């Protein structure tokens, strides 16, 4: 039998059982659309997060106190840090020519009061460089003054939300706020930056690093953000940081230097794995669709025993019968997959119109994968019924029930 005739014959069989065919196509379409949409959601999420990271600058090198060995042992917990990472350590890093600028950071939480209003806020002790290193934007006023970071001034810069909570609609610039027992003058307010990597910049207050050290009574830095001169010098900056700090710490490397890119690729990997996991769970619906196809083909074969017997009597060999039934299940799977892709494409575009963070349109490889999966389902779940049909004994199949 010619291919075109086989397809026409299979298509006609499917048309004859219209409602059954439509229901199976629906099941298959929902399965494919589900997998495609969830994969697309995962992809969109991954792209959103990595874009956020990239916005921070891929030249960033982060120096943390304490050493996290990649081989063996538990990660260092509280108190395992041999030595503090001090402000002088941070400033020493400036000696490397691969380092463009850096911002030491002391972090802590403290009550911020203005008049009768009090808020618990995140305090970031840093230098003027922080603005450039973290790509922050000022809404109004000035940032921390440049100058010797060892001298803690009494300036502070507020996040948008915090400013609003403390001052309402009243002007904040030039006003005084109290952090614990110290007073700081508001010199600037940050532009609304939204959430970035889990820290809400809008609810923070930035003060000079030395003031923060005094406030929290600590020598040790929370971390040092180092910006390399360009992308190519990130590796050199990392090596320089480790070398300088080892020299300063009596030859012992007791800090951890990570690059923004390493963090980025780690997140990327995690989110990718998550996407695959979600897609895998959604793929169960495809398994169900496949079993439905198998079920409907088994019914079709038993309902059309006489037809199979007749085709054999007319001279169709077993392989022909098998091919005819296999085409039916393949058509069901492929047409269902096509419908599912259209459904997913429309749904993703509609969703993206409302949520701008989502990328519009499903990825191109989803279409290829869907058809591959449909092919596998059609053949995988269609073979057993088709083989059963091909094996029917024509005499028994033709005998009247």
């Amino acid at each position: 039998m010619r291919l075109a005739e086989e397809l026409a014959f299979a298509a006609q069989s499917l048309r004859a059982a219209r409602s059954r065919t439509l229901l199976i196509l629906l099941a298959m379409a929902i399965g494919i659309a589900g997998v495609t949409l969830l994969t697309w959601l995962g992809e969109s999420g991954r792209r959103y997060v990595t874009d956020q990271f990239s916005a921070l600058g891929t030249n960033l090198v982060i120096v943390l106190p304490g050493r996290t060995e990649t081989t063996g042992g538990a990660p260092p917990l509280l108190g395992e840090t041999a030595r503090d990472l001090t402000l002088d350590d941070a400033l020493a890093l400036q000696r490397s020519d691969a380092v463009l600028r850096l911002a030491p950071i002391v972090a802590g939480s403290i009550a911020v009061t203005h008049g009768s209003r009090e808020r618990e806020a995140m305090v970031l002790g840093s230098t003027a460089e922080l603005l450039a290193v973290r790509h922050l934007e000022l809404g109004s006023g000035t940032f921390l003054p440049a100058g010797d970071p060892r001298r803690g001034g009494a300036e502070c810069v507020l996040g948008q939300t915090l400013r609003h909570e403390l001052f309402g609609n009243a002007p904040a610039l030039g006003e005084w706020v109290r952090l614990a027992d110290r007073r700081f003058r508001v010199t600037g307010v940050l532009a609304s930056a939204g959430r970035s990597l889990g820290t809400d910049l809008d609810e923070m207050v930035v003060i000079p690093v030395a003031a923060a050290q005094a406030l929290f009574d600590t020598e040790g830095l929370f971390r040092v953000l180092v910006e390399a001169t360009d992308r190519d010098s990130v590796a050199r900056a990392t090596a320089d940081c480790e070398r300088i700090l080892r020299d300063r710490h009596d030859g012992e490397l007791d800090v951890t230097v990570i690059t923004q890119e390493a963090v980025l690729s780690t997140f990327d990997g995690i989110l990718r794995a998550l996407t695959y996991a979600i897609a895998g769970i959604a793929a169960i619906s495809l398994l169900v669709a496949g079993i439905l196809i198998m079920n409907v083909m088994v019914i079709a074969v038993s309902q059309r025993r006489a037809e199979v017997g007749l085709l054999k009597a007319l001279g169709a060999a077993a392989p022909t019968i098998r091919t005819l039934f296999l085409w039916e299940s393949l058509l069901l799977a492929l047409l269902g997959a096509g419908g599912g892709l259209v459904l997913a494409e429309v749904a993703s575009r509609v969703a993206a119109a409302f949520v701008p963070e989502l990328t519009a349109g499903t990825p191109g490889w989803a279409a290829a994968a869907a058809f591959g999966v449909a092919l596998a389902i059609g053949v995988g779940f269609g073979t057993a019924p088709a083989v059963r049909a091909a094996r029917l004994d024509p005499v028994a199949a033709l005998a009247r029930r």
Partner: protein
Amino acid sequence: MIELQGVQRVFRVGDQEVHALRDIDLSIAPGEYLSLMGPSGSGKSTLLNVLGLLDRPTAGRCRLFGRDIGDLDDEAQARVRRQSIGFVFQSFHLVPRLTTAQNVALPLVLAEVPRAERNERVRAQLAAFGLADRAEHRPDELSGGQRQRTAIARATIGRPQLLLADEPTGNLDRKTGADVVEVLEKLHDEGLTLIVVTHDPDLGRRAHRRLRMVDGRIVGDERAPGAHDAAR
């Protein structure tokens, strides 16, 4: 054309053996018109199925068109059925979702006859069987006689040498049955070898060779000018 020697067909039903055919020796020449009669369960249909290559004998030799069918694999048997044998069934066995024209075209589709030639042959065949105006109707829109004529048109469109009919009039009233018999006999007149299994003595008497079967054995093989030959 057909040569059977010591053909047996044994079915297993539970732990019992049922001998549907016992030691059948039979020789049929081209162009014969043969009727096969006997009580239910005497093996008539089994013999017809063996002759039509739908069933394989358990023992014995069976030569068809000069070839020993024991040597043929499934594919080769299917080819013989496609090219040389036509079947007509009591219950017509038309494919319900296909039109008359599509049902008649099936053997040509299986034989991969090109579409243009196929359409032409189907049109001619429908006209010859008086079904031209029923070409686009489905089987459930046809009368019993039209259905059986469609089935015969389908069985013969591939120009077989042998036509096997199993109770072709069994589901038809007397008048329609007579019409169908007339169609079959006309085909025989044109050179087709015709074998008819029937319960109907009147139909059986029309053949020029009449076999009687009982319990899987041929108990009568009568050659005489049949009613059909006499009428010619």
